């Protein structure tokens, strides 16, 4: 078992950034007064102070600085809470990064309901959706430490404006040391015939558990994990939907526009299939535990199982 296995995701983020800097001194770590929350302070700040830039509580400026650094050949990773990294600086990302097509990596930490105690003001359920509709952007959500590391290596090695969600605490690993990331490919974690279950981000570990439990109940799940919601691997989804005729999506996001939205768009055009979207409905967040929000909005492990069971009985 690797040392990554038991690390907090933000620890993996900081350590991986240090390794990337060691391999390429142009890699930069940008923060907006949340560097401890992102896991880069002291990890990166002390090991690579020359590559660490704190913009202060000025997210718009951080994105612009990132764009300027990228124009000059640097590879800036700019992190802040996902609510600030997406909706607060949407125009800065749109114009100075995506439209200008410069190599900035934007990291939205504590996505969706993982903002817990900070509550509704800090919860962003829309970043996968809002970033996905921006031309030139790649949009990723890693499910575990191995995928996070592989994704960051890919980001540092490729000239490509990118937005990545980063859940901060420990999560249940899904993959292992051998994992390789390809933004063009979904990962078929489990093959089945009764229902297609599609997930992204740390929710995938719940999907894995749900699929295993369903197998014991005689429901066989084709489990697709999408580390990248843009680019979106169309073929893997369509092939699976043709096989099962029933699709359930689950994500730590609004059911409007994110992974569920992407799945619906693809299937509507390529292979119309009934889709059940699990996530947060058209609501704002609130101060609460993850369990409370899973139960309230119906996208926890039990809800995933139930939705798959139902979907399998009303196949298209």
């Amino acid at each position: 078992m690797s040392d990554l296995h038991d690390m907090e995701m933000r620890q993996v983020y900081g350590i991986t950034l240090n390794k990337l800097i060691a391999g390429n001194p142009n890699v930069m770590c940008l923060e907006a007064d949340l560097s401890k929350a992102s896991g880069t302070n002291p990890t990166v700040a002390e090991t690579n102070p020359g590559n660490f830039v704190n913009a202060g509580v000025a997210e718009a400026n951080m994105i612009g600085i990132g764009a300027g650094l990228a124009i000059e050949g640097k590879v800036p990773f700019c992190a802040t809470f996902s609510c600030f990294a997406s909706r607060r600086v949407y125009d800065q990302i749109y114009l100075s990064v995506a439209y200008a097509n410069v190599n900035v990596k934007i990291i939205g930490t504590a996505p969706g309901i993982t903002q817990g105690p900070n509550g509704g003001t800090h919860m962003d359920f829309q970043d996968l959706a809002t970033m996905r509709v921006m031309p030139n952007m790649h949009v990723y959500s890693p499910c575990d430490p191995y995928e996070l590391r592989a994704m960051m290596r890919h980001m540092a090695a490729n000239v490509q404006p990118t937005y990545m969600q980063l859940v901060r605490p420990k999560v249940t690993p899904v993959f292992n040391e051998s994992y390789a990331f390809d933004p063009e490919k979904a990962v078929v974690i489990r093959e089945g015939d009764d229902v297609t279950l599609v997930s992204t981000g740390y929710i995938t570990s719940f999907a894995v558990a749900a699929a295993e439990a369903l197998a014991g109940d005689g429901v066989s799940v084709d489990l697709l994990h999408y580390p990248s919601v843009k680019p979106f691997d169309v073929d893997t989804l369509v092939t699976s939907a043709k096989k099962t005729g029933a699709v359930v999506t689950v994500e730590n996001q609004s059911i409007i526009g994110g992974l569920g939205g992407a799945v619906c768009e693809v299937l509507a055009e390529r292979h119309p299939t009934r889709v059940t979207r699990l996530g947060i409905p058209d609501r704002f967040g609130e101060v609460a535990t993850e369990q409370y929000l899973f139960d309230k909005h119906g996208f926890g492990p039990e809800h995933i199982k139930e939705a798959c069971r139902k979907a399998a009985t009303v196949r298209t």
Partner: protein
Amino acid sequence: MSDEFDKEAAGHVADEWRYIVTDMICRAGSGHIGGALSLIEIMHTLYYRVMNVDQENPLAPDRDRLVLSKGHAAPVLYVALAYKGFFPASLLGTMNADGTTLPSHADARTVPGIDATTGSLGQGLSVACGMAKAAKLDGQKHTVFCIIGDGESNEGQNWEAAMFAAHHKLDNIVSITDYNKLQIDGFTDDVLSIEPLADKWRAFGWEVFEMDGHDWDDIYTNLKKAKSVIGKPTMVIAHTIKAKGCCPVENTPGSHNVKVPDQEAYDKFIGGLTTQDVEVPY
């Protein structure tokens, strides 16, 4: 260099640029004439006397950079770059035409010699900070120039960048405010005053110079001085006249973006210029 400068010849070039900028906008049917014409002498001085650039190698690592944060003034930048030989001047006539590489706002993706893509106001100084920071990290000695508008100075992001540049002692930034006293909805003092502007920048830790943005000597002297400031970024406040040289709209709020729907309007704008006998290069 200043000794060799032929003010009379430069004056003729400035008249020619005013004519071409106006003609480009007229052919396009509309455009941001005011904020382009207020920058004619400044842009000429930057590209001919102050900035180190190489049209044969537009991405030369040691070149000086320019971020035209008020991206709507792109027509004057396009003319300067074409005259310097960054791209054929024949392209100037295609501005805003379908499929053009010269859009209304400055575009680094399609125009050789442009260092940053701009158009959404308030973002350019942040980008300039990133470029200047990169230069410091890499031990490069060039200067990053950044032109912002007075109306644009309403945008809060400028002041985030102002704090950052001073904190990081980015003395390789020379910013210029095109202070023509007008923004889209009227005079800046009526819409949202930016005064006391010099004091604001000083309070943010910047060196501040003021100049007449249409006086060749004043522009050259202040930009050279700004380039040599050590330990802090510099703001040069350029007092200018919006739409300078185009009589029908000079110093009027309406000059921000003019519509040129027909020959009559074309004749009005072109006829309002001091020089008429210009052969456009397209």
